[in-house]
């Protein structure tokens, strides 16, 4: 098994674990983290899976793509964490309300109500 193949396997594992974390964890911090891992997994797949010239380093094009991807991921993470913190302030915890137990009753496809949109930004939490 070539080293590239090893890293392809690792990439697939990292991607899928990240996806599972994003979907499975309700905490926004882990959701953002999971998306980051998904990205890293794809970068591994991209670079390890790309065709290469024997004897040379990695294909420079996917290298550039991964570089770009890392930068974009950083940007997205910064925004994601910033938003997650706002949710934590305004909704009283770093969770989306429909992910929380008890919130299921308020279906996602809710009819909506007056206070659905007429909510004041909730004053922070008891700290």
């Amino acid at each position: 098994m070539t080293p590239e193949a090893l890293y392809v396997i690792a990439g697939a594992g990292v991607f899928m674990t990240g996806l599972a974390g994003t979907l499975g964890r309700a905490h926004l911090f882990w959701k953002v983290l999971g998306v980051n891992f998904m990205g890293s997994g794809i970068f591994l797949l991209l670079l390890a899976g790309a065709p290469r010239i024997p004897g040379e380093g990695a294909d420079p094009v996917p290298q550039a793509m991964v570089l770009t991807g890392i930068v974009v991921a950083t940007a997205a993470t910064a925004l994601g964490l910033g938003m997650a913190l706002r949710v934590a302030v305004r909704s009283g915890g770093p969770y989306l309300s429909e992910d929380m137990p008890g919130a299921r009753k308020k279906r996602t496809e809710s009819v909506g109500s007056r206070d659905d949109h007429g909510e004041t930004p909730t004053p922070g939490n008891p700290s």
Partner: protein
Amino acid sequence: MTQLVWALDASVAVLLVTLVARAMLTRDLFEASVLFIAFGLTLSLAWVRLGAPDVALAEAALGAGVTGALFLNAFQRLARTQRHGVDEGPGSRPGPLRLLSIGATAVLASALIAIFVGVPVREAILAEAVNENLGRTGVSNPVTGVLLGFRAYDTLFEVCALVVAMVAVWSLDRGSRTFARDPEELREDPVLEALTRLVVPVAGVTAVYLVWSGSHAAGGAFQGAALLAGVGVLLTASGLIRPITSGAPAVRVLGVMGLALFVVVGVAVMPWTGAFLAYPEGQGYPIMILVEGVLTLSIAVILLELFIDVPAAPEADPRLAGVDPTGDPLGRTLTLAGDLIRQTEEDE
């Protein structure tokens, strides 16, 4: 020897998956952040093993460094105010559902591997094309050639993504920005001060070197900028410079300067070459160095902004509490803004 190398690769691969799995399973935010940084460092080792030193540098600086710092920062702010440093929500504890999802993940990962194994292997058309045409760009590092030459358009929009993220984070902002320590407090912390005085010059020089070396060896604007941003974080954290706010015109100008220059250069060459971002033959190298230099500065400012603009301990704005809850978001906004403006005027 080869077996030893294979063992190294195998253990890196196993470590990567293990770190991710640990990070996704833990309930402790701090632990997850540290695991993420460890993952990033391991990943940069993998990049080295895959023959991609530029990516390795970027991963260490941006992936593990800046992003890791962002996570730690978020952890700190969540943990400071409430028990959100620990996840108590759904999906955080072991249970049958988790077992199921681990199983599903394993199955899907195998499927993904099968897909990749099933892809017919092609020749490296692009790698060869890059080799053939690299001379025409004026740089000798093929990755830089792709980033600033062949696929400069992507790079331009990558910088654009950073600017957008910066603006987006600014637009989120509400709450205090007290990131810097009290200057008084600083004087009582000789270690940090000494560290700052020692590290800053070294890091600054390294950053410049990284940018310059990008044209022929591993390095480049993003890696250099990440280093510079680190310097900035350290300086702000130690209180040597005041925290920069989005309101400061200088920050805005610095932040968009790189992107603006990139665009201007791309358009300015059009009368000669007819295409966007097509540098005239032989002029590529100086143009790229110029663009890269300015980009480094801008990106450093942006990264710093992304970092320090994550709001400090979220606190309620008392002025919002009394606002009439009926009404559309805009309506609320209107009254609120009016009140604030009136208040400011009265204060003055």
